[in-house]
């Protein structure tokens, strides 16, 4: 039986990962995600989990060791943040190309410089195009649930792709809050043992990570892309299964008070619940506002988005990241592309907020929504706005 517990979310993430019985954990400390591997090493040290914990000398080696372990046929797990994720970057794309279902928790943090250990989404967004499945948790419960779901999704025979679960650094990682923690029996029932596509076995020697010449590289890419796009179907199935077993519902885009909404706000990660409070207040004031919370970032839920924005006049997209020199934040770029071909589509406004740990409050969301509402009739001058920046 699941138990209602209070726990720091990073530790809960480690507990959830441990319930999935990873066999190899390779991780390197980095703020704000260090508590995840720390707690896992404790769990291993106590003998609660039979796993090899590799104290690698860098994140590059963490991801490499996970790749090796996965190639050997072992379920592998790591966790990182920010610069650590970027140090892994070389290996990330290879892991998905090799179809190694590694699971990683990312405690999202800004990129240096200036050196900043606080939350935004620049780390994962810089690694957007690496072929991983990417999910965003909004609170402790979603962190626990998505961590367990991630293994099942990654290792599904029709997927076999790595998955990263994103939780906002500090905003989530360092917060003690209540959540339901499944027990071992429940997780064992949900998550079958790992069966790799091919493992390093002397009785059946395989070659993993071969050279692909120009005559096959494009075909390999297409095969990988189709698998990633098709994984959405599997994710939806697994989420359905999760709902049946644990009673908590997951959707690629969660809608909050969107019935009859003229202005929609879109968020990712921990801001979602604070934004709900803004919607509540606005609705009370008579403003027809609603909220879309994106949980599945890759594969991007195109159809779900098109459906979710139907009837809205304005969509205010918030990004905790900026694509420097581009047309705004990565989420807004994606949303604009996804809706471009629609005959009837809302006006899109993009706010860059919460960079490097800048606090985003209920009042900020209310202000953004109120101002965005005018975009229906009065086109904004800029493609995006650095919200709340001084000067």
């Amino acid at each position: 039986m699941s138990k209602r517990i209070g726990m720091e979310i990073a530790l809960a993430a480690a507990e959830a990962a441990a319930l999935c019985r990873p066999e190899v954990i390779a991780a390197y400390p980095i703020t704000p995600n260090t508590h995840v591997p720390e707690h896992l090493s404790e769990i291993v040290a106590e003998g609660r989990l039979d796993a090899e914990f590799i104290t690698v000398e860098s994140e590059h080696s963490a991801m490499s060791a996970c790749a090796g372990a996965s190639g050997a046929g072992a379920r592998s797990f790591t966790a990182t943040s920010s610069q650590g994720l970027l140090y892994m970057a070389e290996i990330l794309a290879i892991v998905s190309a090799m179809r190694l279902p590694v699971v990683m928790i990312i405690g999202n943090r800004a990129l240096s410089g200036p050196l900043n250990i606080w939350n935004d989404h620049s780390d994962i967004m810089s690694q957007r195009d690496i072929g991983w499945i990417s999910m965003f948790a909004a609170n402790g419960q979603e962190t626990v649930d998505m961590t367990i779901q991630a293994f099942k999704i990654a290792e599904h025979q029709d997927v076999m792709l790595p998955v990263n679960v994103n939780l906002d650094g500090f905003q989530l990682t360092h917060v003690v809050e209540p959540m339901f923690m499944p027990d071992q029996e429940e997780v064992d029932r949900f998550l079958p043992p790992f069966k790799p596509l091919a493992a390093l076995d002397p009785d059946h020697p395989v070659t993993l990570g071969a050279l692909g010449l120009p005559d096959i590289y494009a075909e390999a890419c297409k095969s990988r892309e189709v698998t990633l796009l098709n994984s959405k179907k599997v994710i939806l199935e697994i989420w359905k299964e999760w709902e049946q077993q644990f009673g908590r519902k997951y959707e690629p885009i969660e809608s909050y008070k969107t019935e009859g909404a003229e202005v929609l706000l879109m968020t990712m990660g921990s801001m979602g619940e604070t934004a709900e409070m803004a919607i509540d207040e606005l609705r009370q004031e008579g403003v027809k506002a609603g909220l879309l919370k994106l949980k599945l970032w890759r594969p991007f839920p195109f159809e779900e988005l098109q459906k979710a924005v139907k009837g809205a006049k304005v969509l205010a997209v918030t990004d905790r990241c900026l694509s420097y020199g581009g047309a705004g934040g990565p989420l807004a770029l994606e949303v604009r592309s996804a809706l471009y071909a629609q005959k009837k589509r809302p006006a899109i406004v993009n706010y860059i907020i919460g960079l490097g740990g800048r606090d985003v409050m209920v009042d900020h969301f209310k202000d953004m929504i109120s101002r965005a509402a005018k975009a229906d009739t009065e086109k904004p001058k800029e493609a995006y706005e650095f919200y709340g920046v001084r000067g």
Partner: protein
Amino acid sequence: MNTFQSGIVENFDLYAPKLVDKEEYFAAGHRACQGCGEALAIRLMCKALGKDTVIVNATGCMEVVSTMYPTTAWKLPWMHVAFPNAAAVASGVEAGLKVLRRKGKISDRYVKTVGIGGDGGTVDIGLQALSGAMERGHDMLYVCFDNEAYMNTGIQRSGATPFGASTTTAPPGKVSSGNPTWKKNMPEIMVAHNLPYVATACHSYPIDFMNKVKKARSIKGPSYIHCLSVCPTGWRCRTRECIAMGRLAVQTGAFPLYEVEHGKYKLSSVMPETLRPLEDYIRLQGRFRHLTPDEIGMFQKRVKLEYNKLMNKMKHSRSWREM
């Protein structure tokens, strides 16, 4: 040239080659250059390792020439991820196999994890991952196939390039005599990690090399072999002289063969009583052609100095097992 006899006297057994494992784990059809010493060294290493082995390969010549999808030269389970991380990937493989075996998910027999890489992937870009893996004490063998430059990308200098060698990034010119630095002493760096077994080897002494691989394989813990692998393309020598060139490197002391077991240095039996002049070795290679007699003299002096240092270690080192 006096290269014939030394081949025979190695390990005092004329017919030793006939006794090695006839199975080829590194199959023909690989696309290494004609006369590639590294391909030969890998072939020999695999024979010494045998079937119950997993190979983790760094990016480099050997990876490129052996695994052109959809084919592979490998008959051993083999994995390649990237250039700098062979040792880290091997750490993961080793840990994975260990835990799966412990949990009864794979058959309960000993499978050795072996990381391999060229000199670039070992002494330069892969050094951090290798240092970490060795320091953590994984049960794995790492073999560096040192051909003394980045041959895969077209002969750029690496930390293992010897003094004076001409490379495409250390060319001789009006104010340059090729590579200005001394070859990085990678085996010594590994010795400093307190590994139970470190050895140098060369494909030109196949039985010696294979025995070292077998010894390393038998050690439950980290071990390291640094294997000089002649690259006729990069060294600019004749392909047929590949084996002879390796022997000259050893006989001149430019690349001495030795083992370090639990800290105790031991010169390999194939080493000559007295070293041959360095010139015998370098004058046969195009990469040293531009060196002046003065520069060769300097090179020779340094080789002697390093060799004497090594001989001192032979005399004074002790095995920590004896303590």
